[in-house]
């Protein structure tokens, strides 16, 4: 497939140029994007992709919220300073040509004279939109991943029943897999309900065994064309669908301002995208690797991917779904709770093993399709893997 004629630039804008803009980089970016959309005759609601420099201080999601842009299914950053200029076009063209997004905003805004000057080298503090965002929480003490997730968890527990039991079942089911996985940190170290209940409180309602470990390690996966994959040594693991999303009104880890926070709208969108691309549905998924920095976040993702109705994930899990003979054997490596925390990429490795039939805890049943997901609370995503 060539990208020739698959996309076009339809709107353009600059702010004024000065030595002292008198306003934040976030505002400059917001004005430029607003005016480019106006130039195109489009509205913020039409945008579903954003791309900028890794050096840009303005978060995509902060900018989206400022301008009133809604759900995003494509966002990316290009490294190496000015080398990224046409890199933004490159990203947008790929996204549009491949169908990952329909309308991508490329942006770059900086107070390069009145703010952080490149001539000062790599010194000095940066007052970014992201730094300001954390400032709404740190003075009150809300400043650990466990604390942000606990805030959503409290709300979810309020709206469901048996949630605490389900959190235990997730932690223990995964530990039982790790007990049989020699690569896992918790190999041959099972725990009981009593151990779970008596573990140290981290941030109520989360206790120690609801939280993942901190690990050193690395994980990698190689992706090539289907054609080449057929000639290589292993059973190819096809990517059937892959979605990512930053749902409207998003903050990094602290999206406490949506109508209901006991849900993950970003993952709902990613699931919809991946299912659409693959033609699969929840009924086709045989096993899963679900991002598990903390036990409750696994529950919400089950609802996003349609394995159960909203607010019924605790019952789904308590039916034994995650166990080797259950409906959806999940985190068969032990997960990040009990194998290792390599930011979910060890999960991608495990998902590929499940499709190959090579997991150390390979379920007895045929595994045709496996779901693997990314961390939540932040803009997130998930992939559906299967046989070619």
């Amino acid at each position, binding site marked *: 497939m060539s990208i020739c004629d698959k996309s076009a630039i339809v709107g353009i804008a600059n702010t004024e140029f000065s030595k002292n803009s*008198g*306003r*934040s980089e*976030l*505002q400059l970016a*917001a*004005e430029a994007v*607003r005016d480019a959309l106006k130039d195109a005759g489009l509205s*913020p609601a039409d945008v579903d992709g954003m791309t900028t420099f890794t050096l840009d201080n303005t978060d995509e999601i*902060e900018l989206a*919220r*400022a*301008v*009133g842009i809604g759900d995003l299914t494509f966002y990316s950053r290009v490294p190496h300073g000015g080398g990224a200029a046409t890199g933004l076009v490159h990203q947008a063209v790929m996204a549009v040509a491949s169908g990952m997004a329909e309308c991508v905003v490329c942006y770059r805004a900086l107070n390069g004279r009145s703010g952080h000057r490149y001539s000062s080298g790599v010194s000095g503090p940066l*007052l970014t*939109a992201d*730094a*300001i*965002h954390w*400032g*709404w*929480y*740190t*003075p*009150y*003490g*809300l*400043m*650990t991943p466990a*604390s942000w997730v*606990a*805030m*959503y968890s*409290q*709300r979810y527990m*309020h709206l469901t029943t048996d949630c605490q039991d389900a959190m235990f079942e997730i932690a223990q089911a995964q530990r039982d897999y790790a007990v049989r996985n020699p690569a896992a940190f918790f190999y041959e170290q099972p725990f009981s309900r009593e151990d779970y209940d008596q573990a*140290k*409180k*981290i*941030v*109520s*309602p989360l206790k120690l065994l609801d939280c993942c470990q901190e690990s050193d390690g690395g994980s990698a996966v190689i992706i090539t064309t289907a054609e080449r994959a057929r000639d290589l040594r292993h059973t190819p693991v096809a990517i059937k669908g892959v979605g990512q999303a930053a749902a409207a009104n998003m903050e990094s880890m*602290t999206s*406490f*301002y949506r109508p209901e*926070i006991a849900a993950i709208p970003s993952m709902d969108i990613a699931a919809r995208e991946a299912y659409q691309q693959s033609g699969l549905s929840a009924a086709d998924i045989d096993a899963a690797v679900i991002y598990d920095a903390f036990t409750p976040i696994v529950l919400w993702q089950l609802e996003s991917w349609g394995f159960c109705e909203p607010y019924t994930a605790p019952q789904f899990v308590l039916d034994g779904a995650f166990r080797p003979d259950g409906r959806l054997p999940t985190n068969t490596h032990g997960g990040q709770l009990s194998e290792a925390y390599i930011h979910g990429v060890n999960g991608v490795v495990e998902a590929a093993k499940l499709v190959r039939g090579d997991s150390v805890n390979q379920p007895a049943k045929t595994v045709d399709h496996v779901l693997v997901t990314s961390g939540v609370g932040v803009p997130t995503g998930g992939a559906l893997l299967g046989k070619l």
Partner: protein
Amino acid sequence: MTPEQRQAFEEGLYQFVGRSLHPEPKRSYDTVNGAMIRQWAEVMGDRNPAYTDADWAASSARGHLIAPPAMLYVWNQEGYAVASTGRPGDGLADLVAYFDSHGFTGSLGTNVDQEYFAEAKLGDAIYEDAVIEEISEQKSTARGLGYFLQTLAKFRNQDGELIGTQRFRVFKFIPPEVPAQEKPESATELELPTRIQAPRGQDNAWWWDACDEGRVLIQRCKSCQTLRHPPRPMCGECQSTEWDSIESSLDGEIYSFVEMHYPKFPGYQYPLIVAVISLAEGTRLVANVVGIDSAEVRIGLKVKGRVEQVDEKTMLPQFYPVDAAEVSA
């Protein structure tokens, strides 16, 4: 130091270059011996059998034990007794005294480089011959203003064979003066840690400035009147960048909450409860809930906030259960 004083100082200083540390080569206190080797190897965790295993060494290519090369500097070291009763004057002692008398009282060892030419074996006597090899030009470093001085020591055995050399580099500097008031005299003068401050920029400083004055504001779009929190520079509804604000009544209810247990941060008071509060105006605000037992906090609880000074530097909205707020108001 004036330029003239500096010139005079440096003239005297560079006279030291080339001076010997000892009038004649200094013999080691003990000959190379198994006991000191074994202790050194044990402390360093060096298990090479060439140093300590006589049987192994006998069957090796050398046919005998050797001293670890890195022990080079050990044999001629003065012990605590010698060092604590004062050394006889030597070139280095004179140089250090010269530095100290001109205010360069700080000392920082910066580099040691050793080169090895022959092996020392049991029974060898080691003779050290050292000179002041080099003194740098004046350098300004993070530690202060000063000079790097380097000594070169050569180590020979009883037959005059060169075993190795060691270059030792020290920075002599004027330590920065610590103002008297920064030296804590007692625990009561220690500065207490405060809560982490929110960074203040163009999009949010106005909110925190108002908070410092005891008011919680909510940003309002001038064009379409939509309220928004946290503040941002553009209205997501109508894309206007014109805005003003209203003051919140701080009437609200708990939408969700957590209790922080671990880790505990300096500057924060525990028990520490953080909640998402639904304000009567319709926006939400993250803040602490206080004046209530942790076990009594629940979703839906009516709360009333007021801005309070929580430590020396920090003003924050704190929310109380409505009943308690009425009692204490």
